[in-house]
């Protein structure tokens, strides 16, 4: 019998995302955090904070999952020994519980008040025990071991006994089915940054700057120099991994650098900003435009070959070489955009788990898999396996789920169903008000007894009580018991932060047998006690807030949680590598698939590829993939078919596909749709005599010729960025530079002389290594400017003239001229977008909230429910954006992970349970306004009855439909207009 729990070691985003997806599918996870608190070891997004974006609460929902029992977290943890085999691993680890058990902590801060030790820090005075306030997350109380005397006074005053100054190290043994290694991003050591002046007070890391700006936004004052408090006017922004062999460049850094420079100019237009980097490696959607934005705002750029930073008093001097000449420039402040170093944790992982590192010191993973290490059953995800971007990290999180499932037993987790609710229909509303005193703390600020007596006179209130607490297991039981005994059928809780404790308060109401829709929670602590000083005014305000709550719940109605049926099949449009991988993985997980391919053959654009830059055999992998799909009984393959009609909502789609030759029509039903329709190679007709001269080829055509051994040329010239990163197609196609290198290296082996003319060499991550190998093997690299593309000046012999960025004019003879062209969207995308009512981005590829790139901008668009936020339609592979074979496979695995979180369930409840919107059918006129405004596409017009309907599992109760509705037909079950208006009136007491 295989175990069902999964062990996640480390706190990078991929690990969290995997734990979250596994919990949704029904599997428990044990998360081992090496740090003492939730983000002591920072993962990549937290370490870099590119685009100044945090939103960690959005994608690390650990508190919720711990509360539900799906996730067990241990702190100060380290794996000691692993035995067994995949499906039945026995893991022994050590851990030390944090001083304060967050789950039982009420944040009363009595411990801080009682602590006798005061400590001076750069940001002010604090006690030896102190709080790190996080928003929407758990507040963390930490003890400063250096200054703590272990007097134990804090432990004495803690009302819930969650604080213990003596926490012993413990060892634990667990049985798990699989292990996911997800250790965190490691920033370069301070000494490795010395050549950039780090150590000088006015040299700051971009990540520190971004973290500081989280609370205030990046403003002019963020540029105050640490040494003298002066506002820096002349600022350098340096992309250090391009000049430091000890650092690896994770993919977003080019954009982080450019973004920082742009933002400086935005908040401080008079500043003089200069960026230093050799190549702009921004290949994601919108990345190239960031560079253009910065340059047009007046930011300067020096593509220095090498540089060094030296302190000069309070200022700094950047010494750099550019096109062979040496320069020096003085700056008032230097911002370092730093990369990552090889994980130091690899040594421990190798010893204990036997996973092998690769040549760069990262964890080695098998190609075309999502994190498969050298040990079966152990997976490595995220920044542990190599430098990558934030989107890739999150995709790997979902991707590894689709691979891990086969090692696990039956699902072992399901959220507890709520206890049965008492039927209150027909009863007159009887409101019970329960005022929390936070273990007596609140009595120091406000007269709770007087408040209680005032509240008891509000009409409709039949019971008022002051309770000790409402958020720890014993106090929750107590309050639930009191509610039950009082016989009330509506509840108002005057408590504290509902952002962090919402589920606990709801649970209290449910334990008392009442539907939580019949309750309202008010923030007595954050809205009254902590922010005001006048006792009388505080009492008045508390009374008004409670009165408002009472009026609201008096009119509350209990509704059941709506559920919606969902279909099990998945339609995959497109039989290229991404589509095939989706089909294969879904079928492996018992989901029926309909694969619809336009042409007569499977394989897509990858059919003509042989190997990738790293030497992995694409041809064999693709052949195996096609064979697996064609032989699988769960996958129905339709070759020569196209989608012609489509209707439905997420979870319930109806499609009609037609064979273009035989006109056979097939009707399909599915719960989700995967868009794997691919892209097309840009054909540069008209440029460089392409199409007119046999000696001018694209890289794909060259690859075919090489594989057939048909290249007789002695001299080959390659031109990069033909038709890319210009006005018409302002984006980078990501694969062209690697493709050129791959072909160039193959040619050089045959003794061919190769020259590559380029604007930016986009060799990202480990591919950077291949550029070095290329230079060492004699391949020449010549750079030209954006507005000075090379020209063909003669066809006999074929001669190319190029003006380099250093001003030299070169003439090159060529036997073959190879053009590196980009990938353009499939011309059918517009028709499909209309048919599926799915957006296209500005370049013509499918836009996808859940998959958007750069991830930083996507976070703002990712909403709950994550997986269904794009209507259950997933764009993968080239349909989403240009990428390589391996990367297309990754997006496919990510889509499968997302789909598996909902597809096998026969019905889905609303993500917010019963708190969703609904329609008063007799008032609805079917005007469709609500359909237009809904950000989740949760509303649609029922064509038969001509009124609006809500798909419950898509609604997230924002309320936009209510306000849009001209007939008052839309309502939110917990915030109906009839409840809100008396609420407002009572508030104005």
């Amino acid at each position, binding site marked *: 019998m295989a175990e069902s729990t999964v062990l996640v070691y480390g706190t990078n985003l991929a690990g969290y995302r995997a734990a979250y997806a596994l919990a949704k599918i029904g599997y428990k996870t044990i998360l081992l955090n090496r740090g003492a608190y939730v983000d002591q070891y920072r993962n990549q997004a937290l370490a870099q904070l590119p685009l100044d974006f*945090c939103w960690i609460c959005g994608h690390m929902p650990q508190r919720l999952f711990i509360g539900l029992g799906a996730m067990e977290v241990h702190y100060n943890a380290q794996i000691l020994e692993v035995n067994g085999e995949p499906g039945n691993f026995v893991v022994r680890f050590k851990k030390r519980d944090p001083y304060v058990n967050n789950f039982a902590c009420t*944040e009363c801060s009595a411990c801080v008040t009682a602590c006798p030790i005061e400590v001076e820090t750069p940001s002010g005075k604090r006690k030896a025990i102190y709080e790190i*306030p996080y*928003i*929407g997350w758990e*507040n963390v109380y930490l003890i400063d071991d250096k200054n703590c005397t272990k007097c134990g006074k804090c432990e004495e005053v803690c009302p819930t006994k969650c604080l213990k100054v003596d926490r012993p190290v413990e060892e634990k043994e667990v049985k798990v089915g699989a292990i996911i290694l997800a250790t965190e991003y490691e920033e370069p050591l301070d000494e490795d940054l010395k050549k950039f002046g780090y150590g000088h007070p006015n040299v700051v890391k971009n990540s520190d700057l971004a973290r500081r700006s*989280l*609370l*205030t*936004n990046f403003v002019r004052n963020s540029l105050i120099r640490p040494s003298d408090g002066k506002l820096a006017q002349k600022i350098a922004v340096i992309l250090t991994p391009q000049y430091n062999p000890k650092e690896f460049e994770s993919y977003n850094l080019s954009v982080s650098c450019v973004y920082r420079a742009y933002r400086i100019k935005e908040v401080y237009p008079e500043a003089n900003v200069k960026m230093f980097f050799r190549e702009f490696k921004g290949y994601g959607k919108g990345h190239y435009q960031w560079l253009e934005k910065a340059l047009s705002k007046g930011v300067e750029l020096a593509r220095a070959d090498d540089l060094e930073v030296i302190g000069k008093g309070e200022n700094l001097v950047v010494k750099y070489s550019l096109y062979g000449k040496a320069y020096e420039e003085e700056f008032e402040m230097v911002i370092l955009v730093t990369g990552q170093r090889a994980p130091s944790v690899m040594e421990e992982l190798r010893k204990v788990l036997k996973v092998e590192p690769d040549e760069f010191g990262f964890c080695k993973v098998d190609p075309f898999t999502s994190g498969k290490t050298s040990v079966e059953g152990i997976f490595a995800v995220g920044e542990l396996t190599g430098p990558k971007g934030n989107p890739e990290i999150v995709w790997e999180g979902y991707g590894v789920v689709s691979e891990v499932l086969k090692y696990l037993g039956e699902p072992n987790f399901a959220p507890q169903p709520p206890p049965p609710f008492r039927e209150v229909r027909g009863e007159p509303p009887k409101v019970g008000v329960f005022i929390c005193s936070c273990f007596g703390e609140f009595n120091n600020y406000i007269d709770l007894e007087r408040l209680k007596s005032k509240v008891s006179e509000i009409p409709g209130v039949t019971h008022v009580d002051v309770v000790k607490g409402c958020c720890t297991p014993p106090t929750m039981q107590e309050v639930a018991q009191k509610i039950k005994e009082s016989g009330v059928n509506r509840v108002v809780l005057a408590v504290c*932060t*509902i*952002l962090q404790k919402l589920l606990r308060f709801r649970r209290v109401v449910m334990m008392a047998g009442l539907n939580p829709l019949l309750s309202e929670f008010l*923030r007595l*602590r*954050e*809205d*009254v006690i*902590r*922010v*005001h*000083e*006048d006792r009388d*005014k*505080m009492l*008045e*305000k508390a009374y*008004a*807030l409670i009165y*408002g709550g009472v009026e609201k719940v008096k009119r509350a109605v209990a509704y059941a949680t709506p559920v919606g049926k969902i279909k099990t099949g998945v339609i995959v449009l497109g039989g290229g590598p991404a589509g095939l991988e989706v089909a294969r993985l879904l079928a492996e997980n018992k989901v029926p698939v309909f694969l619809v391919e336009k042409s007569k053959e499977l394989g897509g654009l990858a059919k003509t590829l042989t190997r990738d830059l790293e030497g992995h055999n694409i041809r064999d992998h693709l052949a195996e993939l096609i064979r697996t799909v064609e032989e699988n009984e769960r996958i129905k393959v339709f070759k020569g078919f196209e989608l012609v009609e489509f209707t439905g909502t997420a979870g319930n789609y109806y499609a009609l596909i037609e064979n273009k030759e035989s006109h056979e029509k097939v009707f399909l039903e599915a719960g989700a749709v995967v868009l794997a329709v691919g892209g097309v190679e840009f054909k540069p007709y008209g440029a460089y005599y392409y199409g007119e001269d046999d000696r001018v080829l694209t890289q794909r055509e060259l690859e075919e010729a090489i594989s057939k051994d048909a290249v007789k040329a002695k001299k080959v010239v390659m031109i990069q960025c033909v038709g890319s990163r210009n006005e018409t197609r302002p984006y980078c196609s990501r694969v062209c530079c690697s493709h050129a290198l791959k072909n160039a290296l193959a040619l050089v082996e045959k003794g061919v002389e190769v020259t590559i003319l380029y604007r930016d060499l986009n060799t990202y991550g480990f591919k950077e290594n291949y550029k070095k190998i290329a230079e060492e093997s004699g391949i020449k690299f010549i750079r030209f400017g954006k507005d000075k593309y090379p020209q063909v000046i003669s066809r006999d012999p074929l001669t190319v003239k190029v003006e380099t960025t250093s001003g030299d004019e070169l003439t090159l003879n060529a036997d073959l001229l190879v053009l590196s062209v980009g990938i353009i969207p499939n011309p059918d995308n517009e028709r499909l977008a209309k048919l599926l009512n799915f957006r296209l981005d500005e370049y013509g590829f499918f836009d996808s909230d859940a998959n958007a790139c750069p991830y930083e901008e996507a976070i*703002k*668009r990712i*909403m709950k429910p994550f997986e269904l936020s794009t209507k259950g339609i997933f764009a993968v592979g080239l349909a989403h954006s240009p990428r390589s074979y391996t990367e297309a496979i990754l997006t496919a695995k990510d889509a499968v992970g997302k789909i598996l979180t909902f597809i096998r369930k026969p019905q889905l409840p609303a993500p917010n349970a019963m708190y969703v919107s609904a329609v008063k059918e007799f008032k609805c006129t079917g005007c469709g306004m609500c359909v237009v*405004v809904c*950000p*989740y596409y949760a509303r649609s017009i029922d064509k038969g009855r001509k009124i609006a309907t809500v798909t419950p599992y898509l609604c*997230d*109760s*924002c*309320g*936009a439909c*209510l*306000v*849009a509705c001209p007939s008052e037909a839309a309502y*939110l079950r917990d*915030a109906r*207009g009839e409840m*809100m*208006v008396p*609420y*407002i*009136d*009572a*508030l*104005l*007491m």
Partner: protein
Amino acid sequence: MNEAKEKFEPKLVGFLCYWCSYTAADLAGISRLKYPPNIRIIRVMCSSRVDPVFIIKALLDGADGVLVAGCKPGDCHYQKGNYYARRKVALTKKILESLGLEPGRVMLSWIPASEAPKFAEVVKEFTERVRELGPNPIKRSSFS
């Protein structure tokens, strides 16, 4: 006369969106920032939930000022909700003007979740602004 104005304590209603401004107020509480107690808040999931009827009712039934706070443009948790709120508040202000109400009594503010000091600032500023304007002339009656 001035003394009477100084003693005037405006009654303010604030509609805060759960994901940004309500969170900012939460953080303000955690950080123990102080601001005037005149504001009484109502939580809505999104600023787009704020019906113009709420604003008008509040002003007719005893409020001297109404604050609607949402996420920064582009940051709305539900994508476009705050844009809908912006239009509704602008429309409401126009209608209220025709009723003879000073536009300064209705305020729309974008307060990101992490900016607790901004929340306190906005409340302070709004309270003082409405205090200057004096009691609301279209108040019909208070609820007592």
